[in-house]
């Protein structure tokens, strides 16, 4: 009988031998991505630069149209045909060597994807091939990246499925539809670790999962982060995920990073009105009641972006300068950057109405 209690401690021994790297495994430099459509060019990502340090996790937070998913997909070059990276480079480093991911040819790309950098998608059924078993999926992935030893692959797959706290023997021979959403998400995480990559990109890892299931996934990801020191990028619209798992957070709006800083910086010392707006729009469960505020208006049309700062039509601090000139990221604190002409006013407002919880 399969063991129903999957929380037993024997599953928690460390089976991944993942060296915590050093340096800066990933750098995005002035990346711009455009989708070509009949109506015009959709400017999905505009001039984004970012460094990802070894062992850190960065959350890309934004709503629909922010460009976060496009950016994530571009790192593993899984964009659709109609998308074009119009400028910029994505530099990947390991053991002193560096490559421009955007310049890799097909073979090099195969080496890069999954072995160096892998991606975890949402646990939706369409992340899987519905007519093949989990084992086939894992074997196919491994073999298409050059690993031929079936026995070793099977061994490793079982190890990983155990690591993500699944009943490995049962799950490996199941079809995707036989597993729950939470189980599928865990399989996807195991799949992404198959070839021991250095960097993990996770796209909405807990969306569409139930609360208790979500919690187990978050705890698992935290384990990956804290025990295995994986370098991770989380893409989400959910600020709460960022609060749980991210060391640094980048809020994105209309294709650009509008604020970048540590967890505490973003949640307690935001300097961009959009970040502040997001925080004030998200309710907290425990504790007393707090007033919430929505951000008026809606995200801009990415084909016809307004002049100046793209957030100005919705911004309470907007002035003429905002309508004409788009601000770049400036340093507003140690390792804390915001793209706003009036960040000082945001700071002042927070002095009077701080964001800390009162217990």
């Amino acid at each position, binding site marked *: 009988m399969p063991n*129903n*209690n*999957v*929380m037993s401690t024997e599953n928690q021994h460390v089976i991944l031998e993942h060296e915590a790297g050093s340096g800066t495994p990933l750098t995005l430099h002035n990346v711009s991505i455009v989708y070509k459509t009949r109506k015009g060019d959709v400017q999905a990502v505009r001039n984004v630069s970012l460094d990802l340090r070894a062992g850190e996790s960065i959350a890309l937070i934004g*709503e*629909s149209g922010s460009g976060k998913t496009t950016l994530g997909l571009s790192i593993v070059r899984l964009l659709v045909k109609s998308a074009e990276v119009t400028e910029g480079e994505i530099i990947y480093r390991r053991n002193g060597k560096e490559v421009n991911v955007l310049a890799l040819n097909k073979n090099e790309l195969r080496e890069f994807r999954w072995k160096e950098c892998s991606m975890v998608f949402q646990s939706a059924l369409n992340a899987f091939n519905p007519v093949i078993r989990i084992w086939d999926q894992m074997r196919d992935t491994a073999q298409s990246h050059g690993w031929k030893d079936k026995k070793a692959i099977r061994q490793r797959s079982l190890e990983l499925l155990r690591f993500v*706290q699944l009943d490995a023997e049962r799950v490996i021979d199941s079809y995707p539809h036989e597993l*729950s959403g*939470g189980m599928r998400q865990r399989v996807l995480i195991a799949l992404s670790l198959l070839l021991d990559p250095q960097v993990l990109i996770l796209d909405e890892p*807990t969306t569409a999962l*139930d*609360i*208790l*299931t*979500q*919690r*187990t996934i*978050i705890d698992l990801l935290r384990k990956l982060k804290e025990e295995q020191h994986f370098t991770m990028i989380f893409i989400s*619209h*959910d*600020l*709460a*995920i*960022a*609060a*749980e798992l991210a060391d640094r957070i980048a809020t994105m709006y209309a294709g650009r990073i509008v604020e970048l800083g540590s*967890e*505490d910086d973003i*949640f307690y010392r935001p300097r961009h009105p959009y970040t502040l*707006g*997001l*925080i004030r*729009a*998200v*309710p*907290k*469960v*425990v*504790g*007393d*009641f707090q007033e*919430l*505020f*929505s*951000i*008026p208006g*809606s*995200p801009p049309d990415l084909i016809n972006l307004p002049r100046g700062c793209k957030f100005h039509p919705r911004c309470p601090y907007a002035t003429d300068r905002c309508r004409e000139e788009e601000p770049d990221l400036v340093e507003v604190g140690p390792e804390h950057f915001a793209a706003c002409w009036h960040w000082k006013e945001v700071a002042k407002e927070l002095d009077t109405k701080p*964001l*800390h*919880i009162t*217990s």
Partner: protein
Amino acid sequence: MALIELKNVSRTFGKGDERVVAVDNVSFAIEEGEVLCLVGESGCGKSTTGKIVAGLLKPTRGQVLFDGQDIAEMDKESFRNYRHAVQIIHQDPYASLNPTQTVRQMITRPLLRHHKAHGRHEAEKRAIELLEIVDLTPAADFMNKYPHQLSGGQRQRVSVARALTVEPRFIVADEAVSMVDVSIRVSLLNMLSRLQDEFNVTFLFITHDLALAKYFAWEGRISVMYLGRIVEDGPTRRVVMDPRHPYTQALLSAVPEADPELARRKKRIELRSADIPSLLDLPTGCTFHPRCPYFVEGVCDTEVPPLETITAGGRVACPVRKDVSIRLIEEDA
């Protein structure tokens, strides 16, 4: 007398081996002007309950009372009355509007059919009024639009405007803001609250998002459902700040918070098992017992615990823990 009351309502789907009890012996009452939130994870039966309340699904057992009358026993006239008085807002903005109709058609049609307006001109005027009530301004711009030309939040507002055409007294909002951008959610919720204040509309707000439930129903009540049964209910303040049922506590503890300090200080509740029971094979006694950290053998796995009223307010279905308060936020860790 309550506006809506459910008495021992159950709803089963399927037959024989495939039999699923989606809603099991649920009873509650909602007063006029009140807000009740039904929270729970997927499969708990909250949506099914919502549809039963809205009269779109018949219960297999039990009664649904509207203004004290059993809707199954109503004559045609009273049932029609009830039908108009109770409306539903769906979750998916992409499925809740007919893609082949314009906003104008969607709103004027019920107005004309039920003689809330006489003639096209009056219907048009009233439609514009309704669009303004749901903050779709300038309303005239929206009349000719098709659903695919509107954003998710706008579609939800059209759904609400459409529901308002029949002047409902009660609205069932089934995950009405779950598929909408975060920054827009609050504005939609505030609009619904305004309907409550200005038009005295009663709400049954169904959601899996506890934080939203807390915000929307702060002055109202929450009912927590698990695998078809209500495990706890009561005034929102009490349930959220002093939960008694282990499942409620686990939920509140598990929700990730958009506040790092709060996330660090929240009490962690470990469950005995990560497996979610299937509705086809429910555990005996209290269905939560295989996962419950306070499981008492012989007590929890034998009898279904009844919902008992507690002095703090509301009801709890756990004889073991109903009188025990816990702290959800640890002091400095």
